[in-house]
């Protein structure tokens, strides 16, 4: 299964694409990092994959 990530440009914290897809826009989870991370930071192709396969990246 495809697994993509995004690295915060400010603090280097790595965030899984499934977190960005779920939360859409979030403050970087790195402690004391104020950077705003957005689902649109991912490429269009990656976004489309995660939106198309949303259920596979969630545990009910």
């Amino acid at each position, binding site marked *: *299964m*495809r*697994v993509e*990530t995004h*690295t915060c440009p400010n603090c*280097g*914290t*790595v*965030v*899984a694409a*499934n*977190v960005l897809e*779920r939360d859409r826009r979030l403050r970087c*989870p*790195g*402690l004391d990092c104020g950077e705003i991370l957005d689902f649109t930071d991912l490429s269009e192709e990656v976004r489309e994959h995660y939106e198309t396969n949303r259920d*596979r*990246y*969630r*545990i*009910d």
Partner: protein
Amino acid sequence: MKGLVLAGGTGSRLRPITHTGPKQLVPVANKPVIQYGIEDLREAGITEIGIILGDKGREEIQSFLGDGSGFGVDITYIIQGEPLGLAHAAACARDFVGDDDFVMYLGDNIFKRGLTEMVERYETGEYAASIALQHVDTPRQFGIANVDDEGTVTELIEKPDEPPTDLALVGVYLFSPAIFDAIDELEPSWRGELEITDAIQSLIEDGHAIDSHVVDGWWKDTGKPEDIIGANRLVLEDIEATNDGEVHPDADLTGRVDVGAGTTIESGAVIRGPVRLGENVTVGPDSYIGPYTAIGDDSTVAGPHIENSVVVGKSELTADTRLVDCLLGRGANITSADGLLPEGNRLVVGENSNLKL
């Protein structure tokens, strides 16, 4: 070689202790479980470490570990989010790992002998992976490995009805970057997770050599309260007696007792080691602390008989009662109901607590 410590999960089996913090920070012998893994990696020469975090407890873990410099390592945090399996956690670290080999260590596991021997053996061969194994009495409850005479893994089976060996997978894996290609090809299992055993089995079927290392000494998964108490007992077996506090001449200490800074043991207190007392602990007269007990910082023990127990810290234990095999969360107090009417226990107990009175 890099390190990866998995520190996600909900800690549901450790409730109520984990209502207020992640399971990886529950102390064993007064040291958070995850610190044992960090120290094992460092001792094996691995100082670039990724910490995989879930949705729960990630602020607390980052606050404790910081950038790793306090532990002699360099830490990168990797947010997995939902617990989509060990293989998903590994794949989230692909950019962090790059072209290096890496150790994947479950952050709620403790090993007596560390990782050095396993890492050294792996580095002498041409392996795609190495797995840590241990002989178990109940192989049907574990993922089981079949190995040849050289220790090369030939098959992995999850909770087999007819186990071919009693060698269970325990919480340490070494991988080459080949594991990422195997994970790419995986599909979620029946429970919706990407299973690391499926990824390793895929490597085997593709002709890769997988080494194994049978762990010497004990290994503990600290997922349940009884596991924390058991791990605490095993770690305390190896402590040395130290005294950084004040012990009254008329206190009775025998065996190995580790007394932290600022701790006071008063006249008439009885302690039978192995026991570890944290910092700023007070042990009053008529108290008995028996073997395999760890008392966390800023606690007071004045009256009870306590043994084989873990007190996380900031507790006041003043009831004249016997406490055995207890796990007491931070700030939990046990005081006397004597003189209160109507007679009876007064309990303020959180969800998922267990009391045997």
